[in-house]
């Protein structure tokens, strides 16, 4: 935090002594270096995977050279001959499987066809174009060659486009993917929607609570603060698991609601969006509350009384004197919660339903299960870019400076 705080200090007007601004930077140098090596570099390396995917280009050097003369559609005999040679080489080098898997990402069903083709190329020294198309029907279709042509470039926009449910069409224009494959725009939308809901819910709880805390005896405020912070110090996994105990069909909350007669049937709170928003709101509450509380404590009540004595109604005092002073805290708290919500992973897994999975769940799936790190990098890139964009917008247009919050 210290380096950020320091870099946030604006140079004094007319400051001529450069060493003045360099000295704190030198002090922060070890931290900056550590951040660059352990944080910046891995992120850049991982994100570069979203646009750099050389597997296809490496696997098919001759085919790609031959394809230069054949710019669209299913190519002629020489390209197929080059392809057979390339596959034979890949088979011998053991690179065929990774190539098949990579092509399968762009062209579902290609995997087994490529492997069959490689076996054919291994047995038959000069397979004909027809025999190859028979072994791999995708080679007889435009889309098969569109995928190979687009893969011939080591730098690809395929994954970033996919992150927006877009793709290159066979005609070389950008179009949307079929509706039954379009998933990411919806998931990004859902991620932002849930983050907004949780932010609003925490604000609705935190604002009055912070106000009460600034107006009661310090002992009581301290107790309330500890009550808010105690769960904050507990592992997020434990807190999420606790919510499953409370929210499940035969859980505490349903028992209580039935006993009070507020519901006639047990509610489906688990594996639903309601449950997810409740659990996330609880986890995020301290992040919204603490910045608001810290600014509210600094507001001088004498100013409010002065406004009142000058004839302002309570609402006017609140709107024109109180609110402008606590606004930076409110915005900082909301921004903090919103950004943290964008990256939620374990709570949606445990409490959310199938249609409540957020973008992090998809990134994790591509990293861990599909082994498609390129797609994961592309999704991460979009998430990171939108988070940074949001932060810049907030600080620039709403005049919020998180670093000044200290």
């Amino acid at each position: 935090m210290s380096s950020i705080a320091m870099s946030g200090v604006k140079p004094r007007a007319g400051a001529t002594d450069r060493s003045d601004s360099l000295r704190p930077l030198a002090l922060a140098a070890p931290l900056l270096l550590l951040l660059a090596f352990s944080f910046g570099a891995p992120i850049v390396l991982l994100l570069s995977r979203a646009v750099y995917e050389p597997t296809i280009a490496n696997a098919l050097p001759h085919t790609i050279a031959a394809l230069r003369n054949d710019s669209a559609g299913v190519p002629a005999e020489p390209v197929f001959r080059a392809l057979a040679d390339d596959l034979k080489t890949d088979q011998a080098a053991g690179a065929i499987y990774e190539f098949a898997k990579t092509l399968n990402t762009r062209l579902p069903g290609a995997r087994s066809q490529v492997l069959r083709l490689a076996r054919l190329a291994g047995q038959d020294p000069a397979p004909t174009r027809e025999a190859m198309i028979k072994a791999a029907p995708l080679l007889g279709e435009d889309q098969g060659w569109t995928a190979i042509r687009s893969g011939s470039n080591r730098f690809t926009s395929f994954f970033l486009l996919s992150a927006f449910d877009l793709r290159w069409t066979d005609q070389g224009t950008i179009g949307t993917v079929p509706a039954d494959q379009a998933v990411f725009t919806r998931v990004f939308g859902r991620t932002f929607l849930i983050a907004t809901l949780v932010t609003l819910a925490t604000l609705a709880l935190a604002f009055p609570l912070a106000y009460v805390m600034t107006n009661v005896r310090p002992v009581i405020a301290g107790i309330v603060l500890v009550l808010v912070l105690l769960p904050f110090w507990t592992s997020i996994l434990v807190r999420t698991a606790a919510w499953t105990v409370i929210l499940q069909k035969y859980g505490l909350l349903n028992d209580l609601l039935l006993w009070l007669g507020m519901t006639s049937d047990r509610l489906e709170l688990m594996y639903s969006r309601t449950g997810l928003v409740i659990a996330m709101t609880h986890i995020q509450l301290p992040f919204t509350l603490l910045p608001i509380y810290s600014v509210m404590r600094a507001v001088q009540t004498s100013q409010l009384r002065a406004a009142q004595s000058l004839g302002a109604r309570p609402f006017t005092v609140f709107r024109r004197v109180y609110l402008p002073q606590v606004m930076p805290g409110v915005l900082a708290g909301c921004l903090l919660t919103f950004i943290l919500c964008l990256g939620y992973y374990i709570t949606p897994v445990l409490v959310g339903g199938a249609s409540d999975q957020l973008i992090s769940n998809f990134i994790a799936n591509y990293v861990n299960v599909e082994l498609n790190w390129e797609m994961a990098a592309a999704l991460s890139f979009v998430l990171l870019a939108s988070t940074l964009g949001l932060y810049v917008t907030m600080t620039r247009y709403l005049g919020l400076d998180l670093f000044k919050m200290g």
Partner: protein
Amino acid sequence: MKLIYRTTLVALLPVLASAGMTSQIRPASAEELTVMATGGEWQAALRKAWFEPFAKKTGITFNEQEYTGELGKIKAMVETGNVPIDLVTVETSTVLQGCDAGVLIRLDYAKVADRARFLPGTALDCGVGIDVYGDVLAYDTTVLKEAPTSVLDIFDTKKFPGKRAMRKAPAQNLEWALMADGVPIAEIYKVLATPAGVDRAFKKLDTIKKDIVWWEAGAQPPQLLASKEVVMTTAWNGRIQNAIDKDKRPFAIVWDNQIVEYDMIAIPKGAKNLDLAYKYLAYAAGPEVSAQLGAYIPYGPVMADATPFVPKEVLSKLPTAPDHMKTYLVGDVEFWGDHGEDLVKRFNAWLAQ
């Protein structure tokens, strides 16, 4: 107080020092295999049935790790060139994927066992089968008045109203959907390979979508039944059987139209104790040894010659028991290798709709 801390620290120092030293020496002096499995009751069963007897016989001890069955972790190890594990248990579809990605090594079966001794489809290039399990239907006998007779009854919301749980993955569910829609078992994968077949399967799933609770970990189905969150659930047979036998739950298993699958063990690329790993694989492929797992969790052996050694009382609980094999489908690894990623994406898009 300070004195207590100091004395404790002094007393602990030799312990700490020796701990540090042993961790440095150990790999060189004693023979040890590091195995990573998916944990839970299943891993405990592996330990009792195979790891401990093997250690007793050969002196090669096991250092056990746990993971969630996702290849990403192993891929990261292989890419960084630091592979601290020698053996890893995986699902069949994962074996194929790991094979393609160059994360798992292609096995030399001369060092394991004759491939003909394995049940068909359990001796893959990059993975050796270790057990046979069934994807089945389970329910609580105290909740359902009328017993379901087939896994496909999960699609019958009229006769069996209420929430039902299915695994959050396209595999198995799409197959069952097609079966329920009248596709003969022999043609399931042929139909599913066509876009029209996929549409048909999702359309069938649509009919019960709003009643489905999705599970992800194998331990969830018995919990979902126990908490009465669902009236029935698809599950791995061993998890339900253990809940019945050990926790005395009033659950029952429906075997008709089960999908038979295999668990596998593989060697990651760059494993340091390759010879020891092969030694273990050869040991576990022995007919008598292969049959031992059933005593701890009701999963069948993959060695064709192991059946006579399976304990009698276990035999009737296995997915391969004659009573359970009236109608069944064997999961097609090649199909899921080809269409897995695509169908997972389609499945996720469908879930989000």
